[in-house]
């Protein structure tokens, strides 16, 4: 069954006309013990049909351990957005980016394609000083209207600095990880599994927390 109705298909294909380079959706699924893998894959198949610039590569997590490792995939379903040269830019979605999160997913595709809004100079300067690896986890629920904002910011930072890797984690699909990080309010942002804050805070707050890891 199609997940996207005609109206949404039309809106999205119009929006994707603004893409610059090609983007590959690397989708990692498992055959067993993954309730949402099938739905995630068929959702991505539909997204692929919306633009000639969007490509899909489906990987079985168990048989493609090398690829999973290369992109830092540990959960399924997981979707990694690769740029025109099929390089990992640190933009990852763990769980189906449905509900409100479709917005950060669409924005992610646009940004990985190179259709970027630039950051103010002061923030670019601060980002240049991030030289050690940073991982940003953004926990979300699909009914949360201000979660996509936090996911977009994390991904934006990852795109601007190769040392930063950012991932959305849909908290209900990945209850165990969420419990490990005591997630009971979203968006919850965890940096290098150590520093954390709750809420869609301004980019400067992300930067302040990231700077603590350097």
């Amino acid at each position: 069954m199609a997940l996207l109705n005609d109206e949404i298909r039309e809106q999205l294909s119009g929006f994707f006309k603004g893409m610059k380079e090609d983007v590959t959706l690397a989708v990692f699924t498992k055959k067993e013990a993954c309730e949402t893998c099938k739905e995630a894959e068929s959702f991505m198949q539909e997204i692929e049909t919306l633009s000639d610039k969007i490509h899909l590569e489906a990987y079985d997590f168990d048989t493609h351990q090398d690829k999973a490792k290369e992109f830092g995939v540990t959960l399924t379903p997981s979707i990694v957005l690769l740029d025109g040269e099929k390089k990992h830019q640190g933009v990852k979605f763990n769980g189906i980016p449905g509900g409100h999160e479709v917005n950060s997913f669409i924005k992610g595709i646009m940004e990985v394609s190179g259709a970027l809004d630039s950051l103010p100079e002061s923030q670019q300067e601060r980002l240049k000083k991030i030289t050690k690896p940073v991982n940003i986890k953004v926990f979300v629920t699909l009914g949360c209207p201000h979660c996509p904002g936090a996911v977009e910011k994390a991904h934006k930072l990852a795109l601007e600095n190769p040392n930063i890797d950012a991932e959305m984690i849909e908290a209900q699909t990945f209850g165990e990880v969420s419990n490990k990080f005591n997630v009971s309010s979203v968006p919850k942002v965890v940096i290098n599994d150590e520093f954390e804050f709750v809420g869609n805070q301004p980019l400067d707050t992300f930067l302040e927390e990231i700077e603590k890891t350097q």
Partner: protein
Amino acid sequence: MELNLDITEGPKVHLKKEVLYDTLVIGGGPAGLNTALYAKRKGLNVGVITERLGGQVMDTSTVENYLGYESMTGEGLVNKFIGHVQNLQVPILKEVRVEKLDKDGDIHQVHLKNGEVYQSRTLVLATGSKPRKLGIPGEKEFSGKGVAYCAICDGPFFEGLDVVIAGGGNTAVESAIDLAKIAARVDLVHRSQFRADQVLIDQLKNYDNIHIHLDTQMQEIMGEAMVNGIKVLDRNTGEESIMNTNGIFVEIGYLPNSDAFKEYVQINDRREIIVDAFGRTNVDGVFAAGDITTIPYKQIITSAGDGAKVALAVNDYLNTHARIEAPQKVVAK
């Protein structure tokens, strides 16, 4: 699977630092958006600067008191507002926070936290309000660890668990109803009597897992890694007791987001910006609209209406004040 798509179509217009705007609206909720709509239609060069486009209405599950819409999701309603303004090509700068306001001659300057500065002949402050906190021990410590302020966001974490809702207004009662569908038990605790609309209070009866405690004061939030209880005081009997719970949703009203403006315009002891009937503050050319002002009864429709009124007041102001950079025309006879 449900999709809540919210993308803007058509060419994007950006807010520009080099432009001197007729009016800059700070805030992207109903008040700010309607100010922008009315100002644009008056032919003013208007821009919007906002931390959170849509404002608090985004967090409201259902709106049933906006004239013309019997029942809408908060998001659905506000997306209509946003779409309406965006179709008029009003530049909206979102996800930014204002640090302070300043003045250069007759020009008002908006300094953002990220260092950018925008300029305008007039300002409309419409940053609304944010959820009020309980201000009791344990609240800060357990924030995000069982203490929550957005039921539609965080409700799913309490599936099959017990939750307490603090508050007696419409938001609290709506949250109780939403959470009753997810949680095992919902305790609605309020320090006085209900302020909510009777039609909502009546709906509480339909859920036998909702328990109501009026005239009950919350005193302390307790827990270890996560919340496990709350100490309450029954104001009628003077008895203290502990309610066991897994989560506390705080829905006790709102506090104006006026911190960035308090050095620039006059605010009252409730942190509301003091305005007259035209939305004028004590500073020439600076107006305020919606929940951030002293106007009573904060509602979506009153905020939107206030925005319309203030836009018209701004237009009158600009018409009666000489355009700053326009040279005096000498008409030769």
